[in-house]
């Protein structure tokens, strides 16, 4: 890793639901909040759209942390129950991470409503601090094409 000698900067991939979390990231911008530039945000229509394989691919490609974020249960989801599906999948997924040698703290499932810009900034700060403690992800599985 080139930047080894300079202080370790984790890279975090974020899958944000369009109606709530993505809107919160926008609001963090319009309200000029500041947070570390380690996150890369990918927009999906609903947190239910995020396929666990995608998250695994991100880890395989070198992500140090992944966040999946959607609307607050019980009633904020624009598609009524997409967030429940994500909740169901990623609670199971979190348990599998350990088996693959990836610390569970590298993955977070969050509910952030469109007005909770400060919550989004807090999640990013917490994640970056945690990953700096954990250090870079040490891949112990080769990736088949």
């Amino acid at each position, binding site marked *: 890793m080139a930047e080894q000698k300079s202080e370790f900067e984790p890279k975090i991939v974020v899958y944000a639901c369009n109606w709530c979390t993505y809107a919160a990231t926008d*609001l963090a911008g319009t309200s000029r909040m500041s947070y570390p530039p380690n996150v890369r945000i990918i927009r999906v229509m609903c947190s239910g759209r995020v396929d666990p394989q995608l998250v695994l691919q991100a880890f395989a490609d070198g992500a140090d942390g992944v966040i999946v974020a959607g609307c607050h249960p019980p009633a*904020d989801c624009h598609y009524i129950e997409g967030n429940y599906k994500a909740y169901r999948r990623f609670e199971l997924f979190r348990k599998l991470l350990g088996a693959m040698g990836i610390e569970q703290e590298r993955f977070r499932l969050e509910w952030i*409503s469109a007005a909770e810009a400060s919550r989004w900034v807090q999640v990013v700060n917490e994640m970056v601090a945690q990953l700096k403690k954990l250090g870079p992800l040490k891949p112990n599985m080769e990736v088949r094409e």
Partner: protein
Amino acid sequence: MSSVLIIGGGVAGIQAALDLAEQGIEVYLVDKAPSVGGKMAYLDKTFPTLDCALCILAPKMAALLRYPNIKLIMNSEVQDVSGRAGNFKVKILKKPTYVDWSKCNGCAVCTEKCPVKDVPNEYNMGLSNRRAIYIMFPQAVPKRAIIDAEHCMRLNPPPKAKEKAKGPLCGVCQRVCPTKAIDYEQKPEIIELNVASLIIATGMELYDPRNMPELGYGKHQNVYTNLEFERLVSATGPTNGEIVRKSDGKHPKKIAWIQCVGSRDIRFNHYCSAYCCMAATKQAILAKEHLSDVQCTIYYMDIRAFGKGFNEFLERAKKEFGINYIRGKVVRIDEIPETKNLKIIYEDTAESYLKMDEYDMVVLSVAITPNSKLPVPVELTEDGFIKMKDPYLDPVSTSAEGIFVVGAVAGAKDIPDSVTEASAAAARAALIAKRFSCPTEVVK
């Protein structure tokens, strides 16, 4: 096919405009503020689901820009309406914004450079300051800058400085503006329109609690109206959601809400304003979310949790958030000089005992008053609301043919009812606009 004029750009006006535009009808939306959104734009969260008001309103406001047949006439007031259904002549006074809105694209660079920094910001109910040139709120639609002529050094230079200085005192925003949109010579203009029908959606104002001097609003620093508290608790508010007292900037330990301030009182307004019991409960919950150790009490006579999900919301407030409710009408608020805390005087009707409880902060749930003083030939009820012609057979029509009324200006109601009425009125207005009449309907 002729067009429809909507007076008032609140949630009801916006919904009506969208429904009309959906059917391809040309819509003029007039609003006296520089941006649409009305009172709902001030809200942080809405009851009973506590989802954020902006997440509901912003998509609707943005949708307004997508329809080419919606013309927004902001910062303007209707001067005169004449004619009859199918052919109304309307005169609109467009007050100058001193910014050419076709050039301005809301980059807000001017709002950072303007030297006048201490104008009380109406959007935050005066709890924070803005510049002389400003954008009403970050998500305003249309997101355009506007110069507040009264406070602008260029347009209204302070008298002493005026004689000394030879030329114009300031021109920072014009120099800084990348698209050269600033135009100090802009004059008010009269717009004449010819429309098929009108929808009145001017909504409501809050009743001024200064009419009840014994409650001390305006005298005691820590007495707020519920809209001021809403701004205080809102993420986009003056303190970014920090609940702090005006007097010493500290977090309050005990907050009281006083219901029926100006409502259900023959000396002020007979009617009940319908929204305030639930709004107070919501604000108490928001206060608990922001300050976990705060004690919230609501003083009421009848808690009106009548709508869908309201009573469950109330039970949650009592059980989950520990908000207590005391039945008694507060008649006086005294300020304790040293701590600027407030002593509220009322009879606890459960214990038939006069009590004087002390609070750090008191929020008045203020009555609404309809914005019904309009140059439009419609009858009013004696409470000042716009009268419905026949609430059963012709729900959204007014006494004047072809003029419809929706939202709080027709009667105290909350957001879902206003939005429902807006759709109904839009369809009726569309009927006239499309000359689409069926023998059964009495439309001429």
